[in-house]
């Protein structure tokens, strides 16, 4: 069964179609790569999957159930989106990691201890970052990886990553790609918006002016 399906999805904003006729299937253990020119609707597609924008036509089905039938917070915990420019609260690295676990929908999830948090930071290449450090002092690339670690703590079924590699150097890119591969090997699925291929992918969609372009690869 497909974990996520978009059926004839269309999003209209301010009288303009940003997405139209989008068909997308994400199966278990699959990685979908979305590319295309800026302003082509890639981020809007991810936002529509988690209902941050409401589709004007078509629908999104998650685990066999229409996204509109989900409690929105549960939908977004099941399918966590990491934006292109993640935001850090004015708090320490540790508090930022634990913040989503304070939200009502995730309070029953296990709370990692200090060692587990440090181990997680190491996995995203932030092993030298102190847990007590103010997260607002991290560079854009570090914040991007911290945001990915924060998303993983919610134990999502699907990760939606919007340009996760853009601010990263070669070494950090490799780390993030490995993390995504590990997530997929563990049974997760991912949709990655990126200009460069995010490693071995199952499906590649090219979005241009809100429509899926015929594949060339």
């Amino acid at each position, binding site marked *: 069964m497909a974990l996520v399906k978009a059926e004839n999805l269309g999003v209209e904003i*301010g009288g303009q179609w940003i997405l139209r006729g989008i068909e997308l299937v994400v199966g278990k253990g699959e990685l979908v790569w979305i590319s295309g020119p800026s302003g082509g609707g890639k981020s809007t597609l991810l936002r529509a999957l*988690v*209902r941050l924008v409401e589709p004007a036509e078509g629908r999104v089905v998650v685990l066999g159930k229409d*996204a509109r039938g989900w409690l929105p917070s549960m939908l977004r*915990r099941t399918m966590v989106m990491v*934006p292109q420019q993640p*935001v850090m609260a004015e708090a320490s690295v540790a508090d930022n990691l634990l913040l989503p676990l304070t*939200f009502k929908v995730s309070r029953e999830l296990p709370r990692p201890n200090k060692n587990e948090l440090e181990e997680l930071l190491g996995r995203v290449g932030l092993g030298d970052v102190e847990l007590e450090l103010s997260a607002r002092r991290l560079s854009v690339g570090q914040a991007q990886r911290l945001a990915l670690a924060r998303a993983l703590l919610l134990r999502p079924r699907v990760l939606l990553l919007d340009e996760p590699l853009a601010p990263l150097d070669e070494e950090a890119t490799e780390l993030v790609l490995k993390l995504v591969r590990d997530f997929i090997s563990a049974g997760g699925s991912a949709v990655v918006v990126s200009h460069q291929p995010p490693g071995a992918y199952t499906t590649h969609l090219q979005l241009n002016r809100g429509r899926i372009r015929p594949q060339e690869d």
Partner: protein
Amino acid sequence: MASVPVIAPWQLGVALVFIAGAGAASVWLKLGLGKQLLVGVVRTFLQLFLLGYALVYIFRVNSPWLVVGGFLVMVVFAARIVSGRLNAPQLRVFNPIFLSMLLSYGVISYLVVGVVVGAQPWWNPKFFLPLAGMVVGNSMNAIALALERLLGEVENRRAEIECWLMLGAEPTEATASIFAASVRAGMIPSINAMMGVGVVFIPGMMSGQILAGVDPTLAIRYQIVVMLMLVGSTTLGSTMGVWLIRRRLFGPGWQLLWPREGA
């Protein structure tokens, strides 16, 4: 009670000398305020004369319906002023603002007049209308400040709110700190007023009572009640207003709708 000197029409005319001075300054300094000054003077005379005669009529008829009607008119005008100040027509803010003002000001006015002052009956127009008028006038500004803060913060911190939503936050969780900052913005002026009252300024109501010959020791008790009731009404009004308007900022899928994308 000492008799109050009557201000004759010619004395009112003499008071216009202040406006003449302001008008001269506007011309001399090229402030361009002449028209506003003129309109302001005409409105002050007209509105206060109308209010005076309306109050004389309401006091004479002494009907609870007229008192409640007068209160409703004040709240409608206050809600219109605040809605206009927010300049957010797509949010349709009038109804929630009107509702939060009606409930919070109604409850506070009733408690002050009926319970604290102990007027009989509670709608006694000589007590209810002046006190409710002060609640509406002062707290209106508090609600406007709180809501301006709410909309401004949500606009500036949109990315942050959406980031928390993406991580499973409910709208109330994603905007918890903005909610608190907004209510605080509404409450601060009335709290600051308590700090300065009697030291930095003598409030208008107390001055009016003293001018009317009331014993200053009685006037201060009324003033204390007024200061406390204003804290109550600004707290209740700001909290309700922010709570109701915040609900309008999110769609059925808990997506942030303000400010509208692409707009």
